[in-house]
């Protein structure tokens, strides 16, 4: 095992007056292993990868990639590394083969060596069948494989992968990890940057970054092990579990708590006694059992634990109680030409329930979600929000739903206040009602310090708060969230879900689409969409129970997801 990258006192400033993107980093990256670069968005992961690839020069300190100083001798570095940028760096208007040929030309891979390389890479990535397909028409997982193939053309010593798993579903993600392990066996060093903490556990070594600083460096298992004996499941809180979690988080002995389906996962402070059922303060009998720690527990504890502050106490008034289902899909079908993107999808979401739409890329969950929001008209079937058919009374139905898009769709050039005023106006609030609504969300989401700042320049956590604030300004009884916490750091994510939980406690109905399992775990029930059909619907525990076997005694939700998709594939093949 040799050192591939030696970093010493590395500092990178993009803006002389602003904070450093990387602030005093010293580390080494070794061959024959995967080094995980873990941290939330904006932590400095991409900057570090670009520095290693000699695409940026350091402001201070030295970085040597494969023995070459990136400042003095950047050229030879390009011959020994493979770099896959975020979103894979492909030309979407070219075919798979044209992309490969272009990159081979650019990297000087010529015949006869080229032919062998192509054959090897196409076999390795299993893309040989798709060489004539446009890269833009590939699925997320296939794009990622092609990106990897392009980065592998020169058989690099060091492979830099910048967030290779963004926008890729769990199945493709596992496949990529398998491919990377194969490369490790051949002696390549891999740097894998990710915002998903569960991926850290797959790495031999991790560099955990936050705001340009390194929090931890070393074996992820050692970091996880520091949390041994501090993680517990609280089961049996039933309908009161959200309030229970909120109460438990106020306890000084608890540093972190999240929902996992029906179960509450609690992390205690260092040296604190195990939690008692009393701290949840719920009527139902609660059983507390110890469980194995995860990397994320250690990460959150290291950052000082989940926020104790509760937002949104007054974010909205309670919704009137009725028993009618709040959101309903009745045989929703959408056809694009011959292709059926959604095929008779039916579900009912009850008042005060969090419902998740899960599925691999291209499975039809976005199509379903869009039909539920009224962004797409169903070919067949109906979508009802609060009893109103989106096709028959679109304006009235849309007035009852709050929508938060994937990338916090706000007007970046407008100030926080102007954004809020606009969305209040767009939902028909005027005069005193608008003032009250703005004041209420500003207060509930603690936006006062940023009121006059441009929305585009806000820190990610505040952007998210603002997006949510804008979505609930008109007090909708139904809230639709599209991958609400993708790429967001775990602390902000906890804060966000605490807010959502508080709103659900007041009777708001929430529908989420996601392919992140930790988001899915916040849901009361999920529908797994695959090939346009809802192949399984139920509580996360029910889905896990369905796939429990001798081989998998304790399946995670991700395991359940993959097993159910594979089972559906088998059934389809058997039928064919």
């Amino acid at each position, binding site marked *: 095992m040799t050192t591939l990258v030696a970093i010493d006192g590395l500092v990178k400033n993009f803006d002389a007056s602003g904070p450093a993107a990387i602030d005093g980093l010293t580390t080494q990256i070794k061959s024959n292993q995967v080094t995980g670069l873990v941290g939330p968005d904006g932590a400095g992961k991409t900057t570090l990868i670009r520095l290693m690839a000699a695409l940026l020069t350091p402001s201070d300190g030295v970085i040597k990639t494969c023995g070459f100083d990136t400042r003095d001798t950047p050229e030879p570095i390009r011959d020994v590394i493979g770099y896959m940028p975020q979103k894979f760096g492909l030309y979407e208007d070219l075919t798979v083969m044209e992309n490969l040929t272009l990159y081979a030309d650019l990297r000087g891979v010529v015949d006869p060596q080229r032919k062998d390389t192509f054959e090897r890479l196409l076999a390795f990535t299993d893309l040989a069948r798709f060489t004539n397909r446009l890269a833009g028409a590939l699925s997320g997982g296939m794009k990622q494989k092609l990106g990897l193939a392009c980065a592998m053309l020169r058989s690099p010593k060091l492979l830099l992968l910048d967030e290779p798993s963004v926008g890729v579903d769990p199945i493709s993600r596992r496949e990529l990890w398998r491919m990377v392990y194969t490369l490790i066996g051949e002696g390549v060093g891999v740097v894998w940057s990710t915002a998903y903490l569960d991926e850290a556990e797959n790495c031999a070594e991790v560099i955990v970054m936050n705001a340009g600083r390194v929090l931890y460096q070393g074996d992820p298992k050692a970091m996880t092990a520091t949390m041994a004996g501090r993680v517990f499941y609280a089961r049996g809180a039933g309908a009161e579990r959200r309030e229970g979690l909120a109460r438990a988080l106020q306890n000084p002995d608890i540093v972190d708590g999240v929902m996992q389906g029906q179960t509450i996962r609690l992390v205690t402070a260092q040296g604190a006694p195990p939690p008692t059922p009393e701290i949840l303060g719920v009527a139902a009998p609660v059983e507390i059992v110890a469980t194995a720690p995860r990397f994320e527990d250690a990460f959150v504890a290291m950052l000082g634990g989940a926020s104790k502050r509760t937002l949104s106490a007054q974010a909205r008034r309670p919704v009137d109680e009725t028993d009618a289902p709040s959101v309903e899909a009745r045989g929703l079908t959408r056809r694009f030409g011959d292709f059926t993107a959604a095929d008779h999808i039916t579900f009912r979401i009850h008042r005060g329930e969090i419902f998740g739409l899960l599925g691999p890329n291209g499975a039809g969950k976005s199509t379903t979600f869009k039909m539920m929001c009224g962004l797409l008209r169903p070919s067949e079937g109906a979508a009802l929000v609060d009893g109103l058919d989106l096709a028959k009374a679109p304006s009235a139905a849309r007035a009852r739903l709050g929508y938060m898009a994937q990338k916090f769709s706000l007007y970046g050039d407008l100030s926080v206040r102007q954004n809020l005023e606009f969305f209040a*106006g767009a939902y028909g609030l005027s005069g005193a009602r*608008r003032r009250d609504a703005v004041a209420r969300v500003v207060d509930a989401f603690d936006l006062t310090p940023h009121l006059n700042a441009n929305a585009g320049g806000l820190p990610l956590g505040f952007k998210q708060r603002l997006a949510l604030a804008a979505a609930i300004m008109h007090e909708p009884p139904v809230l639709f969230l599209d991958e609400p916490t993708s790429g967001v750091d775990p602390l902000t994510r906890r804060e966000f879900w605490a807010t959502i939980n508080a709103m659900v406690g007041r009777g708001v109905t929430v529908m989420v689409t996601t392919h992140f399992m930790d988001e899915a775990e916040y849901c009361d029930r999920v529908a797994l969409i695959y090939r346009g059909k809802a192949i399984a619907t139920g509580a996360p525990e029910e889905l896990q129970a369905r796939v429990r076997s001798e081989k998998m005694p304790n399946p995670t939700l991700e395991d359940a997801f993959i097993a159910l998709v594979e089972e559906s594939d088998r059934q389809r093949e058997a039928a064919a």
Partner: protein
Amino acid sequence: MLWTRLSALVVKELLAAFRDKKARFALIMPPLIQVFLFAFAATMEVTNVPVGVVNQDWGAQSEQLISRFERASAFSEIRRYDSQADARAAIDRQEVMVVVQIGQDFSRKIAARETPDVSVLLDGRKSNSAQIVNSYLNTIISQFGTETFAPDKLNADSRIVERAWYNPNRDYRNAMVPVLIATLPMTMVLMMVGMSVARERELGTFEQLLVSPLQPLEIVVGKAAPGLLVGLGQCVIISGIVILLFGIPLLGSAAMLFLSLTVFLVAVIGIALFISSLVSTQQQAMMGIMLVMMPAMMLSGFSSPVQNMPDWLQPLALTNPLTHMLVIVRGLFLRDMPFWLVAQRIWPMAVVGMVTMGLAAWMFQRKVQ
């Protein structure tokens, strides 16, 4: 309720256009710069041209003719060349665009009271300017001829008396600059409105609008109104500059001018919104705008009259709002165009506006389906 939603949209659009320093600059500065550039640079008058002369005649008559060229204010200097080959080379090098060649027998023929020949070589690459220079030369040469052959009978024969109506001094600027009141706001508004929807699509805020209770037609109106306000603002500023700074009088009614400009801008905004309803990225929007803008300029009579275009192009020119607007602007500035004539030009623009807006609203609705 409707008014609240609409005003929220309009306020937001105006804020987005004016809050950012760079965006504000982009709306105000380019039109100003262009007004001045067009007024001074884009002139079709020919002044300061050098004229080449190949004089093979040794007599006094040819020198007299050349001295007349020298005195003409349109020509900056007379360059003499020894042979036709030299003159040809000078045209090749674009030193001169016109060469006057005077034959050996020029003076002799005049003395014999015969008609001498003068040939004029023109650079066809600059057809317009060369034509104009040619006409100047012709005037000088024929005047020279009349005065030499019949100095005493100067006023006896019939003579053409020219008078340019509506622009008595034939001041090129009076005809050209008012046109900018229509063309510059048109380009700005096309850009602003055409790009704004595409930008919202890229940002994802357009979906946010579509899931709100806003109706497609409200979105269209909400996007159109700020464009109209900004466009009219530019019209006012440019008119001010044209009238006050360049001293070009507005002979017709200002009310009629702004009524027509309003209808014109609505038509332009309709086209911009229709483009933006078809595209999904700002890049595509830009291409769409270019695709419309260049032909709209060419087919409007901005630089060459619509009547000169082939028959099959003429109907197309009539669907172009700029064609009508230019007639109105020129009519109102250079003469007091009566209302009934203005109205004839307003209604086609109104039709274009209504059709394109309707199509845009329909497309936004369709995208949802």
